[in-house]
């Protein structure tokens, strides 16, 4: 099948790839562009580890064809830290122990980013409802909720401190 040139903006950089129509976005990112933050967890659009931000929406890149992304604006975890400074979400996940093995974390943070763009002050119930497309098998979610609350407060310009006694010491 003839390959097609697909152009999009990835983490601020103009990017062109030559792909077969059947190539999935997660494979383009990981194997052609060496953007390996989005992970292949389930490969069946259940787990959310492959989540990327596409034109203002959180999407599972295992269930998007790269050819569907022509002209898109795309953000992955690689685009979060600026000049060596962590994004408030990355800081929150670190400070609040929002990760253990870290496999789900790029997808979690990328999804939480879009949630906070849409709702800068989510309640715990909001966070649990709107993060339901991302699975974590380590944390039990409690610290992920805290990490997102931490980031939300910091992004609102509030002074934040970790709730974790070891991190605070």
């Amino acid at each position, binding site marked *: 099948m003839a390959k097609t040139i697909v152009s999009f903006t990835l983490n601020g950089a103009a990017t062109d790839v030559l792909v077969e*129509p*059947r190539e999935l976005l997660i494979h383009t990112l990981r194997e052609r562009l060496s953007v390996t933050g989005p992970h292949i967890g389930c490969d069946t659009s259940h787990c959310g580890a492959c989540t990327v931000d596409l034109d203002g*929406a959180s*999407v599972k890149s295992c*269930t998007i064809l790269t050819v*569907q992304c*022509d002209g898109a604006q795309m953000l992955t975890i690689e685009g979060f830290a600026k000049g060596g400074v962590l994004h408030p979400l990355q800081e929150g996940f670190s400070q609040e122990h929002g990760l253990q093995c870290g496999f789900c974390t790029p997808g979690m943070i990328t999804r939480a980013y879009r949630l906070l763009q849409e709702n800068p002050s989510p309640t715990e119930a909001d966070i649990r409802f709107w993060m*339901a*497309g991302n699975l974590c098998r380590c944390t039990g979610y409690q610290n992920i909720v805290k990490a997102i609350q931490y980031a939300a407060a910091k992004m609102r310009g509030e002074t934040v401190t970790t709730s974790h006694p070891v991190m605070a010491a």
Partner: protein
Amino acid sequence: MIPRPFEYHAPAALPDVIALLTQYGDEAKLLAGGHSLLPMMKLRFAGPAHLIDLRKVASLKGIALEGGEIRIGAMTTENELIFSELLERHIPLLAETARQIADPQVRYRGTIGGDISHGDPGNDHPAVMLALNASFVLAGAAGERIVPAGDFFRGTFDTALAPGEVMTQIRIPLPGPGTGSAYAKLKRKTGDYATAAAAVVVQLKNGSCTAARIALTNVGPTALAAHDAANSLVGKPIDGAAIGQAARLAMAITAPSADLRGDEDYKTAMAGQMVERALRSALARAR
């Protein structure tokens, strides 16, 4: 998992979609949100030679109040249903349903037209469409036709869509005064299909039920309209006994298949429970 090779088309206008569908016939599939079709293609349960992506067809998007009915473009996403102020005011049942579908990422992509056209009895919109007395605009080379939801669902993955046709719009009559609605869905976890679910729309006047529609999800080869259950409610106040009777009549029409979600008897019992729950919510909202 990688789909079989195919040729990709992304036409910008509806006539081009229909021309491609006509040209390629059985070899073509329409791509809407892709969250049913792409997983099937990855598993090689589907292997179309031509994939026609509807994402550039602007006329298939949007929600409007027109001619006394709500008109929803087939490519409107679940997320857009959830946040529509127009729907919140007139058809809150749609947002309530959409919030129970899959997960946030899937709802950014999944579309109401795709959910309905797919013909999957596990999808949630078909029963809701039956309960809302919706109709669908189907466009083909010969023009448009309008098919009521009650005539659309023919079997599992089998609908009234003829070869070469595409669903363009969903039309829902505005509910009258005193209407209450609800969608009650039992699922094992986020992202799962319903073990059983029920959509209910009731209309009350002076405490008495003047109209009712009930439909069931995932307990038969298609979404099922529970006509006897709904008719049993009409013409009197709806009390606990009437709710129980409607649930039993709804349970009488189920034909579920056993799977990991439960056996036939369990699913039928849960369908009855969902009818009861949805009825109680709908009644509370109608008053």
